[in-house]
């Protein structure tokens, strides 16, 4: 699908901008927010940049509101008022969609997926991840100015995937009529000296990508389904031979799902059959061979 019908990113609002930058801790949300704030300031606007980063270090959500205009009151952008949403991670891009201006808001997102451990909690046979389901194609379909790109891949190609944030910044830069030199100077203020060259390259790559998108020659990246290759569905059952069990507690302690316990007679019992995934850890570890896991295939692959 081409981006033919789309307007250039952000070309719709003259003057000030409301830009929401989102991602996951450690991705560089704050760095590109600071660059955007500085650009706003250079343009002679009042600037507010508001972030919540309390959980940033521990892989949590990070978001930063950048607002510049002749006069800015609220430190945060109201829902439906963002001229641009710049997302450094795919699921995060979806979380903030309702902040975008209907019709005119520009969506720029890296298709990179950072799957949190939380999304892999259901380990049952055949279970699927809780990671957000929507694909770039679906979002591009819904939002008139949506740009999804593999920014991390582009940055990695240049030598460091961590510069993906700067690729996205470069991509957004075509929306502001601002000389390249100003962007470079602003970047240099916030990236370490050793990382300047790669960040300049990343910025240029993003800009080039966006110009091509403007011309309608960029494809919407496809995303392979996550964890797709499932084996045949299996149903497992646990058989515990009470006569052989001596209550050593090993299976109880090491069951990954915590679904075993010792009963009053110190015999292992399956207390949470629904939680059992049939992983066989108990079967392997039982020193007395008292546990057997039976698996039967259900249905076809």
């Amino acid at each position, binding site marked *: 699908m081409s981006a033919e019908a789309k307007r250039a990113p952000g070309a719709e609002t003259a003057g000030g901008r409301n830009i929401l930058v989102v991602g*996951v*801790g450690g991705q560089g949300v704050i760095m590109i927010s600071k660059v955007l*704030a500085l650009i706003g*300031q250079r343009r002679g606007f*009042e*600037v*507010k940049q*508001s*972030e*919540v980063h*309390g*959980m940033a*270090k*521990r892989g*949590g*959500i990070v978001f930063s509101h950048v607002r510049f205009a002749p006069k800015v*009151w*609220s*430190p*945060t952008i*109201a829902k*439906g*008022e963002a001229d641009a949403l710049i997302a450094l991670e795919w*699921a995060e891009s*979806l*979380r903030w*969609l*309702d902040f*975008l201006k*209907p019709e005119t*808001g520009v969506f720029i997102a890296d298709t990179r997926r950072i*799957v*949190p*451990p*939380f999304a*892999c*909690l259901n*380990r*049952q*046979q055949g279970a699927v991840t809780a*990671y*957000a389901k929507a694909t770039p194609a*679906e*979002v591009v379909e819904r939002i008139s100015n949506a740009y999804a790109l593999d920014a991390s891949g582009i940055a990695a190609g240049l030598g460091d995937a961590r510069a993906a944030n700067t690729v996205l910044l470069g991509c957004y830069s075509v929306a502001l009529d601002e000389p390249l030199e100003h962007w470079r100077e602003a970047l240099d203020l916030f990236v370490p000296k050793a990382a300047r060259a790669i960040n300049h390259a990343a910025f240029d790559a993003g800009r080039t990508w966006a110009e091509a998108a403007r011309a309608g020659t960029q494809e919407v990246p496809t995303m392979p389904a996550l*964890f797709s*290759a*499932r*084996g*045949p*569905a299996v149903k497992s059952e646990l058989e515990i031979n009470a006569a052989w069990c001596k209550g050593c507690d090993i299976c109880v*302690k*090491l069951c*990954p*799902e915590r679904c075993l316990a010792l009963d009053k007679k110190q015999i292992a019992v399956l207390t949470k059959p629904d939680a059992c*995934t049939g*992983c*066989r*850890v108990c079967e*392997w*570890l039982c020193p007395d061979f008292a546990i057997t896991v039976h698996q039967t295939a259900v249905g076809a692959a």
Partner: protein
Amino acid sequence: MKAEAAVRPAEPASSASIPLTGNEAIARGAWEAGVRVGVAYPGTPSTEVLENLSDYAPSEIYTQWATNEKTALDMAIGASFAGVRSMTSMKHVGLNVAADPLMSQAYIGVNGGLVVVVCDDPGIHSSQTEQDTRLFARFAGVPVLEPSDAQEALEYTRLAFQLSEDFDTPVILRSTTRLSHTRSSVAVGERVEQAPKGFIEDPQKTVIIPANARRLHPKVVAREAAVARYFEGSGIHRWEKGDRKFGVVTHGTAYLYVKEIVPEVSILKLGSSYPLAENTIREFAASVDRLIVCEELEPFLETEIKALGLAAEGKSLFPRCGELSPELVREGFAKAGLVEAAPVTLNETVENMARPPVLCPGCPHTASYLALRGLGARVTGDIGCYTLAAVDPLRSIDTTVCMGASIGNAVGIALSGTEKRPIVATIGDSTFLHSGIPPLIDAVYNDVNITVVILDNHITAMTGGQDHAGTGRGMRGEPTYQVNYEQMCRAAGVDWIRTADPYEVGKMYQTLREAIVHKGVSVVICSRPCVLDPVRIKGAPLEVKAAGCVACQSCMNLGCPSITWSDETYEGRNKVKIDPTTCIGCTLCAQVCLSDCIQPVTA
């Protein structure tokens, strides 16, 4: 108390304008006001106040992390006694801990100006509760200043010191997460040195025995009225004339949302909610047809205004819980009929995914809790990064209350006599020093059967990596005496103490097992540095040899964010893989792997 006319809002000698966050502006304001001593215990969102203050020359300001908020305020009070300007900063819940000295000092007053910066966290971005410090200010009888942006944060901080000295009172400067962490342009001034006054011997003022307290209390009441009078004429309350049909009384960041949503109405922006500017409010109310109070968190002003006998609307329009936002303020004014409701044509968010914060790859806490999980213990928790072990997949903490609560809670559970499981209290090193020592003494004193696990990661990690008395370094990196936990526990009367390395999973587990069978109080110190602070630790990554992986998910139970599912499966469950860019090579996953398929990366 000096003549009220002497007090004037500090005027910034606008030499330059620089972008500052609220916290940076508070630090700048304190520096400009000539503060000499700054002490604090970290806490989001207040931490950067002291961190920024310590960027100024040590010859101008002494700054240091305190053991807790009470000792911080005690030290700041001491400096004030000795005649220099002093400041402490804390998060809202920190003031609960520092409440005792605050209440007394409200009676005693100051010699050098004393400012207590308190950052509230509406919306509970990173806290255990949502509290409105204005209630505390009124409770203590201490004036509170409420800046709404970084420029005001700087100016009000300077004013706070002035007010403190002119009215002989500690002053609370109240910030919120939003203000503390929003950056905007600030016109800054220069430092004005204050001549140290030295200690003034006046025991009737500085020794709060009942006879003195009975004399001082009426002074607190008189001061309330005097400060209110000063506020009336000071310009700290701003009356912005507008449409007389609606008058909005507001404060702090709420003011900014009001200006964003209903700029045309009459606005009374209060720079302080306590002591209340009664006359200004009455006059303002009389000038408008309908009075609306827009405030964040508690209906503080609304209640006071209604007590004046004035008709006002407030929490019937705006929520009492959570952080205000332009949307919520719009909703409130829409309910009142002032504005249109928000357009409904918004982009609906698509199905969302929860992304709770997680322990870092290689976090030493992971292994300690994995071992506890296996022990089937009743585990009381505390506040720090390790609180994240309360949720899946580690899910090994039963209670969390507030800082330092774990040990006392464990003692109480033991005293109840109902608990059949081994009782284990888990507490971080910084939290142990903060408020874990008195309950440890209680534990021994009551001779209960509990195990205390001190999770010593050699830093205050949760708040971004601050030093403390147990790290052997001060906040400017200077070497200091390093608290010895083992000696400390021994002095409290604990006779069974072991130090273990959580990176040795088997040994850790064995040590904990021995600890829980010990009769009486046992202490296990889990010693291993945080992988983020003070230095980021990154070793050679491990990888999963997929052929051997049986998808048992034992390693997934660590909750290490570097481990995720791969596309391959075994008996219908996903095998796992490791992200080499984030894995730090701690080997915890390899130690719990039952099929020995997690190994160093081979070319």
